[in-house]
């Protein structure tokens, strides 16, 4: 193989390398837009309690005391696996998944309930507000 052919091989491999590099950059750019898209799907809702905001990042959000829960509430009155929130068609639903102290929405003991904006969710001694996402808003 002469040097010209060798250069062509190297250029061809380099073109593929650059292409993959560009595609990886595109993937990272899509990550940002995908997050924005998710906020639209989830109607831009979040859970908040005094001084803390919990993002609702997937279609099934586990709330509990356990260290690996999506929304962790380190309080003995909260069960380790207390409640599960799910989204469908932009509508969030909360469901009790076998908690000991029960799940209350706006003061009413419930097993499963469709959530509306500004609903107050009570798990044990902890109170969470289900509200529109707003970074500036401080409760």
């Amino acid at each position, binding site marked *: 193989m002469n040097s010209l052919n060798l250069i062509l091989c190297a250029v061809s491999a380099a073109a593929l390398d650059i292409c*993959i590099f560009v595609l990886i950059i595109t993937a990272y750019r899509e990550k940002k837009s995908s997050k*924005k898209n998710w906020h639209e799907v989830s109607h831009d809702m979040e859970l908040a309690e005094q001084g803390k905001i919990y993002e609702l990042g997937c279609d099934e959000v586990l709330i509990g005391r356990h260290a690996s829960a999506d929304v962790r509430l380190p309080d003995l009155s909260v069960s380790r696996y207390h409640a599960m929130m799910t989204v469908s068609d932009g509508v969030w639903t909360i469901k009790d998944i076998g908690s000991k102290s029960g799940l209350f929405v706006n003061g009413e003991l419930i097993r499963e309930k469709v959530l509306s904006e500004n609903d107050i969710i009570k798990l044990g001694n902890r109170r969470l507000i289900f509200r529109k996402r707003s970074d500036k808003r401080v409760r």
Partner: protein
Amino acid sequence: MYANPIAYFFSSIFVLIAHIAMLVNIYFNGNYTNVRSVAVLGAAVIILDIAYLVGIIFFKQASYILDFLLILIIGMSVIFQSCFGEVGFDVKHYITCIVCLVASKASYLLCRNHKYLQDKKKYIYAAIGIVVLITLVFTSAENMWIEIGSFTIQPSEFLKPLFVLACATSIADQQKKHKVLFFNVVYENIALFGIMAIICLVQVKSHDYGSLPTFLSIYAAGFLLRICYPKAKFSKKKLFAVIAVIVIFLLIGLKYAPEYVQHRLHVDIWSDKTGDGYQQSQALIGIANGGWFGVGPGKGFLANVFAYDNDIVFATVSEEWGLLYALMMVFTIVVITAVPLINPARSYFHGTMSACVSAAFLVQMALNIWGSCNLIPFTGVTVPFISTGGSSLMVSGFMIGMLLAAQSPVFKEQKNKKQEAPVPAWRWNE
């Protein structure tokens, strides 16, 4: 939708440049008798690229990155397969690649709404049963293919996406525990274990031992996410128990494997170069012969070795295009499987599906490459997208459609499903 038009434009341009660079390399370095064959190949690849890149505009997706990676690897596959032995245009492989692209889009449309698929779970189990029956009735250890005219179908390949769907659709049922004697049992887990056992038995009966690790990897990925569902339920004890059971079964399998499998496990390819070690020894010689930049498209001798275009395709690409290019090909497939890590799925269903598909792709690729390089016994498993084979390519396309669906999911309830009326908040009742 179309959130990054500039990035998409440049991605399309660079995909085209990558393919054009390969075609230019063929023009100057390739082994061809008539320049027309290079022109036909080039036109076919560029037309396919443009058609697909224009076609995806009509699909409203949140993410298109997997489409770009898919068309990149498919174009590479068409070019590689058309150049083995002598530069020409492999029409059959080109058609199967188009089928692969269509299958990816069909799978994307089917899998993007997990609530729809979870409702149709029983049909997935029924489809697995039908494919298992077809495999048992129409195939044998001597012939794993069904011949329909000039086409051959390997039915066991179709079990892979169905098994992935079975793993993913049953994940949401992990909380439905039933008390049986003293144990809390999830019926779906038992059903899935049963399906896995049946598939493994069918593969053993068909003497298709190479596919076993692929199915086991799908099950392992599905099971790992299963015991982590919801996240808090993760149990180290269960995980260690599963690993221990797998190791025990592996040891028993190795101990009681058929004689020819035992022979393959212990064969010295260099002392049996004309027998069982023929393909692997030739593959290693081919890789060494190709060096970093290859001997040139169509100039390799591995095209004379049996299964050069599927079982030892990594070695054939290494010989003709060079080890650098073969490694870049592997890297492209690794990037495809890594996309769900860059942009994680928003549901357990899609997460499980992505993990299972990525595990299957990686294990298949590892088995093929390590087998070609004599790091493990030769298995005869194909490299996704690169190896020939209509069933393999179609299934790979269908599985990448699942990854696409996980990147652009839809969260909608089924229209025919009875919807619960939203309960008004107490403040409105007052």
